[in-house]
């Protein structure tokens, strides 16, 4: 397969082989790094989580179904899980990388500064922490962990409409604070 700029993510993942996966990585690495940098709030952890996210994606790519949810959403699903694992365990796991025999890529100081700069809106994460508990839990579950409203509602023991309202109010507060801070 000849790889061109116009190849879709689905094509890169399913028929592009190693080169296709590398091209898929180049397309999305910055977004994944930014996501992890924003929510892990540690550039080095973000680098490790990004490496683990792509390693897990490489392992799982044979199970990716073209024509289903977009490939970037599939990739973010993996990233969300890796971030959640990190939060639960307190460290970034490296199981997928080890299974693939990948060496840890140690970010340089310059890399770390760049990753921190990617986070950009890192203050947003600080504002999330300042939200009232009920809004913080709902916003985090919806925006960070990308969970369904029904699931959030069940966990918080409220109605689905109530969960939507909490997320919506939380996001409105965040928008206001970000506006004030700039």
């Amino acid at each position, binding site marked *: 397969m000849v790889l061109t700029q116009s190849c879709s993510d689905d094509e890169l993942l399913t028929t592009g082989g190693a080169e296709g996966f590398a091209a898929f990585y180049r397309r999305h690495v910055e977004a994944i790094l930014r996501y992890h940098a924003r929510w892990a709030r540690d550039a080095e952890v973000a680098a490790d989580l990004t490496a683990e996210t792509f390693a897990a994606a490489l392992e799982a790519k044979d199970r990716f179904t073209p024509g289903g949810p977009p490939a970037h959403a599939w990739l973010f699903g993996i990233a969300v899980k890796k971030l959640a694992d990190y939060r639960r365990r307190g460290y970034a796991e490296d199981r997928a990388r080890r299974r693939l025999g990948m060496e840890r890529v140690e970010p340089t100081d310059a*890399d770390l500064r760049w990753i921190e700069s990617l986070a950009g809106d890192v203050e947003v994460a600080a504002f999330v922490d300042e939200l009232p508990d009920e809004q913080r839990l709902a916003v985090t579950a919806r925006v960070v962990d990308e969970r369904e409203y029904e699931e959030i509602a069940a966990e918080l023991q409220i109605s689905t409409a109530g969960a939507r309202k909490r997320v919506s109010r939380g996001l409105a507060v965040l928008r206001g604070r970000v506006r004030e801070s700039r």
Partner: protein
Amino acid sequence: MTDFVTRLEAELHSAAAQRERSGRMRGVALPRLRVVLRDIPAAALATVLFALAVAGAAIILAASPERPADMGLPATLHGVWQAAPKELRLYPPGSDRCVNLGVGSSAACYTLGKSASGVAFEWGRLSVDGDELTLTGKQDSTPGVYRWRIERGALRLTKLRDPVSARVRALVTTPLQPVHPARARATLPSGWASHPFTSQRFGYSLQLPSRWSIDTSGPTDRFALHPWNSTRPEVSVVAQDLPAGTTPARWTVIFDSRFESAGCAPHDLRRLIVAGTRSRVSVYRDCGDPNLQSASFMHDGRGYGVIWRGRRTPPERDYPLFDALLKSFDFSG
């Protein structure tokens, strides 16, 4: 600057290629082979395998193109060439960078990336035959052939044939300006790194320029033409015992913090093997001196820091000089 992205891609690409190879072996070839093998009597099988081996060898010998000689890379082409927002980096055979990118230890290689961040989005082998430069990317193995010439110091590439339009756009639209013009042409002065010195207190040896003097009266070993008159360039070496468990990366952070706490930001970061040990060199511009480079590495539980202070700018002009001194480090004595 964002070497991480490039190095991670190299790791992922290598893992993906490995999986691809093992997947092909596992998923297709072997099961079919097993089915066939089961149905063939042993004697017939041995005959068939022998015949296949002979035929295979003959086909391979007949079909393999003669391996082209390694064309190397003219010194005038070495280094970084930029036409913002793109940059082309050309590395001679044997460069660590080519090894790290999985291109091979003995091949010349190139990277094509963003000039602002230094992130490479394409890399691969290169060869030069006269005025023809061939770039064969690892991502897209289609070779691109260009005619090169140096015009008023800039590298001008003309496309001869290259089906990869993105690469053509990056390379031929404007002349590529050299970022480290002097680096490629730099040669070591006569007698550079030729005069042995052994530091008893820090436990290392190195080779100095023949006319340089040595000052070991202070907390660091200092070397320069006249170290007492603050002549430049000057090299100083310091070492200290480190707590158990200190990693080379941690030592680098400790050592470089003296410059960064003074408000100096690295202009460039390089990696070098010093006495068999990985070393990182941080390069600063206008950090007390116009050209300050700090190399840090560990040996036997000790952290070593070597500082180059020079006046020449850009700092890249002094890379070969400092590197030659660093590479002369020895701990065997």
